[in-house]
């Protein structure tokens, strides 16, 4: 059992950066940051002087910074304003944050000076990039946010210089105060003049050595709203004249609602209407498996019941007689899907394979070898299980549509709503709420399309809420994936040949087939193609697509989450086959200059890596690179004689190059360990008769506090040009680290997730 004092000490984040030995403690918190974000985070306070699209300065020096990313727990409402404020050199205690306005992003182009400064490269929209995914919040917005802050600061200085008759170079800006000799004034006083100034040349942004604000673990600006119930999530939105919708759509993707009997429930209290969804009913874009655009966000066949309260709508929906036709996929199961893939996997000559990577002649070397190792790995479909069930509130009138939703991609939500409302994008307003997690699920906008169609049909504002059951069954799933590995263990110091075949359901093929590259789905082979960290004289990776009717989608770390399990487990198998220590074995397979070395060595050292443990105890290694960040983990587990697994601790070394806010990164790492461990232990979506079997948390299990391991985060930062993402990359190493630790403890090799399906009695 964990000891609290121990935990508290562990709270310190130890840094293994080149700077060495820095220890970061708790920031002393106060409630002084209360009120710095509105409960309705899309609502900006009135007034103030806009200096540029990202920032508004009030006469009292309050600086409101607009955030283009969605707050779903990762801390963008704190970390991104820090990037702007670092350059602006304003008083952080007076910084407020608000969402950037989506409609304006769609209507207005990037500001010319941002383009001139080379900082506007993501899109041509005003706020550059307003989707939140791919661990890109810092990685992909850092340059333009820093430029917005620096350009504003220099304009403030120029305005003061003009007034005081001095050179801009002689004006300094610190804590929202401008000064030069005996002259001084505030940002608030010069904001209006600054907004009109053109500079000959935009200032350069700071280099990391110059940071003063970045690098501090400041209190999150959104915490006060999240301890008293005042943060508004999509599901909390209430607008005048709003009614509620409960929905049920075909449990089998591509199936249809044959009939329903609204008369049977229409006289129940509060019940107002029913609308048929999809085929034969409302909605512009209907779900069709054969069409990419339609299967990505189209409206599934089903029905919505409208009432004056959600529970009345839901009860009526559940009591209403309905008849379904499962359609052509009514006999598909997860077993039939995965067995189909395994058949392909067993046939290396299947013509649908495409090479993802090839060096030397692995196939020939393995065929000629008298010492080979083979293994097959399987990972299942998974649902995101966002804490907040899917929902969306919409209001459509003749000349305007409003949508309130916690979305990871507001501009896409806006265009989907515009299409359903039949209005130009300029007339559509998306109000982004707080998100009760996203994990990729809230990039899809299927709920936005459905809600907009329902609100349009109803002619008044409607809040659509999916039950947990509907949320799970209408998931957009992480694909299953299957792997076969063969290796020739001959070779002087390491195996000579490695051959990997992968057969999976391809997200690219499902959503964006134009981005397949000669049959290769880049994310499906992440870390296993030329990005494989290990080198063999002969290596080959082949990939074949085997899709099903299930809708698949990005899921926190996506391909890496399953590929790391397969490769890191197989490397462990090779190490044991070679009689080598798994740590030494990995180091021997990595090139001398591999960026994986340092994180791997840091994780091993911090964990006290050893293979010398009693039966029933084990350590295991997993590592992966995703979104420009390398993470290595060492898991320590115990397995009781009765086969009871406990993951005791996970040491996690991360190289994301640089860190804006160390504690937010530590929180992200812990969050990802929990996410990865939940999936490794329990995650599995079954399909029977074409439909998802699991529907709620009694069947689709989540890690709970009593199962939480000790998680120790170690920064192993390489600095330099590297700015890696931190929202996902600690997920992939968890499953292999734990599975390898189980092998060390019990001699049982787990080749198919989740772990809970395996008998671990040693």
């Amino acid at each position, binding site marked *: 059992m964990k000891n*609290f004092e121990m935990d508290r000490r562990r*709270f310190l984040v130890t840094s293994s950066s080149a700077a060495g030995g820095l220890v970061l403690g708790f920031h002393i918190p106060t409630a002084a940051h209360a009120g710095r974000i509105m409960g309705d985070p899309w609502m900006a306070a009135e007034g103030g002087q806009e200096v540029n699209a990202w920032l508004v300065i009030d006469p009292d020096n309050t600086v409101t910074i607009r955030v283009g990313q969605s707050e779903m727990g*990762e801390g963008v409402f704190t970390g991104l304003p820090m990037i702007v404020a670092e350059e602006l050199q304003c008083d952080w205690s007076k910084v407020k944050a608000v969402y950037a306005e989506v409609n304006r992003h769609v209507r207005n182009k990037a500001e010319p000076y941002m383009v001139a400064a080379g900082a506007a490269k993501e899109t041509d929209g005003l706020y550059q990039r307003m989707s939140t995914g791919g661990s890109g919040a810092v990685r992909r917005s850092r340059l333009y946010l820093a430029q917005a802050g620096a350009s504003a600061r220099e304009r403030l200085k120029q305005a003061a210089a003009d007034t005081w008759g001095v050179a801009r170079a002689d004006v300094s800006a610190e804590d929202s105060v401008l000064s030069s000799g005996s002259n001084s004034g505030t940002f608030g006083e010069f904001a209006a003049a600054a907004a009109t100034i053109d500079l000959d040349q935009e200032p350069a942004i700071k280099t990391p050595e110059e940071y003063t604000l970045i690098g501090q673990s400041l209190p999150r600006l959104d915490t006060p709203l999240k301890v*008293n*119930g005042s943060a508004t999530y999509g599901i909390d939105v209430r607008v005048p004249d709003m009614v509620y919708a409960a929905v049920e759509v075909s449990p089998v993707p591509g199936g249809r609602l044959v009939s329903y009997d609204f008369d049977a429930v229409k006289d129940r209290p509060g019940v107002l209407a029913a609308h048929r969804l999809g085929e034969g009913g409302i909605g512009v874009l209907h779900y069709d498996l054969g069409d990419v655009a339609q299967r990505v966000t189209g409206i599934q066949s089903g029905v919505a019941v409208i009432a004056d309260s959600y*529970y009345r709508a839901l009860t009526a929906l559940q009591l209403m007689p309905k008849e379904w036709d499962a359609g052509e996929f009514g006999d598909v199961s997860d077993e039939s899907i995965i067995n189909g893939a395994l058949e392909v996997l067993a046939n290396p000559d299947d013509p649908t394979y495409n090479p993802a990577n090839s060096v030397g002649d692995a196939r020939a070397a393995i065929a000629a070898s008298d010492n080979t190792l083979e293994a097959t790995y399987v990972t299942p479909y998974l649902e995101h299980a966002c*804490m907040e069930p899917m929902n969306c509130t919409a209001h459509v009138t003749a000349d305007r549509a409003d949508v309130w939703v916690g979305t990871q991609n507001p501009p896409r939500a806006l265009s989907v709503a515009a299409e359903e409302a039949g209005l130009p994008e300029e007339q559509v307003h998306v109000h982004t709420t707080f998100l*009760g997690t996203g994990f990729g699920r809230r990039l899809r906008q299927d709920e936005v399309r459905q809600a907009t169609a329902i609100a349009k049909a109803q002619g008044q504002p409607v809040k659509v809420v999916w039950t*947990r059951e509907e949320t799970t069954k209408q998931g957009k799933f992480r694909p299953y994936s299957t792997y076969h590995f063969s290796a020739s263990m001959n070779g002087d110091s390491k195996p000579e040949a490695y051959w990997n075949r992968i057969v999976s359901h391809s997200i690219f093929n499902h959503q964006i087939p134009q981005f397949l590259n000669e049959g290769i789905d880049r994310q499906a082979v992440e870390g296993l193609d030329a990005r494989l960290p290990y080198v063999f004289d002969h290596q080959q990776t082949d990939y074949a697509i085997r899709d099903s009717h299930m809708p698949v989608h990005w899921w926190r770390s996506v391909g890496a989450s399953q590929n790391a399990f397969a490769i890191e487990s197989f490397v462990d198998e090779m190490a044991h086959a070679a009689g080598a220590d798994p740590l030494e074995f990995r180091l021997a397979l990595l090139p001398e200059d591999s960026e994986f070395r340092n994180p791997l060595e840091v994780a091993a050292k911090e964990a006290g890596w050893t293979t010398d443990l009693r039966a029933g105890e084990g350590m295991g290694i997993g590592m992966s690179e995703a979104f420009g960040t390398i993470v290595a983990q060492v898991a320590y587990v115990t397995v009781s004689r009765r086969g009871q697994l406990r993951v005791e601790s996970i040491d996690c070394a991360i190289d994301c190059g640089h860190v804006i806010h160390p504690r937010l990164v530590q929180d992200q790492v812990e969050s990802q360990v*929990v996410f990865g461990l939940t999936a490794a232990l329990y995650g599995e979506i079954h399909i029977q008769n074409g439909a998802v079997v699991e529907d709620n948390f009694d069947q689709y299990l989540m890690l709970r506090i009593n199962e939480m391991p000790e998680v120790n985060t170690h920064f192993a930062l390489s600095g330099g040009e590297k700015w890696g993402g931190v929202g996902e990359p600690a997920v992939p190493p968890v499953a292999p680290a734990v599975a390898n630790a189980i092998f060390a403890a019990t001699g049982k090799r787990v080749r198919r997730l989740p772990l809970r399906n395996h008998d671990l009695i040693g």
Partner: protein
Amino acid sequence: MAISLTINGASHTVDAEPETPLLWVLRDNIGLTGTKYGCGIAKCGACTVMIDGKKAFSCTTKASAAVGKDVTTIEGLSEDSSHPVQVAWIEQDVPQCGYCQSGQIMAAAALLNQRPDPSDLDIDAAMSDNICRCGTYRRIRSAIHRAAEIAQG
């Protein structure tokens, strides 16, 4: 149908069927949306409130069962986030997405009502009804210990 309830010390009369879960009465009829819906089957804790000082899942508590009792929601835990659990939560920046946190805080406050100085085992037992998909469990644990310290002065 009219039901009268006492929520955070104020009485409310709402138009709802007696079997309506307290959760939806709080959220839709009264507008107290701090109490969250997560599962509807007592398996996630997002909807946790206190009834007469004890923790309850509002999703599986019928509104009729709360008649004549004192219901406390996150909005009524304190006027100004000054309850020791809220203070500790702010100090330690516990929430990530925050969606589960009303339920976590109410469950923690109910735990401290029963056990002013809970052990880690007490915390495991009391808090494992509450899922946090963001994985803030370590901070929840340490913030509960901190809240116990604050409450004891």
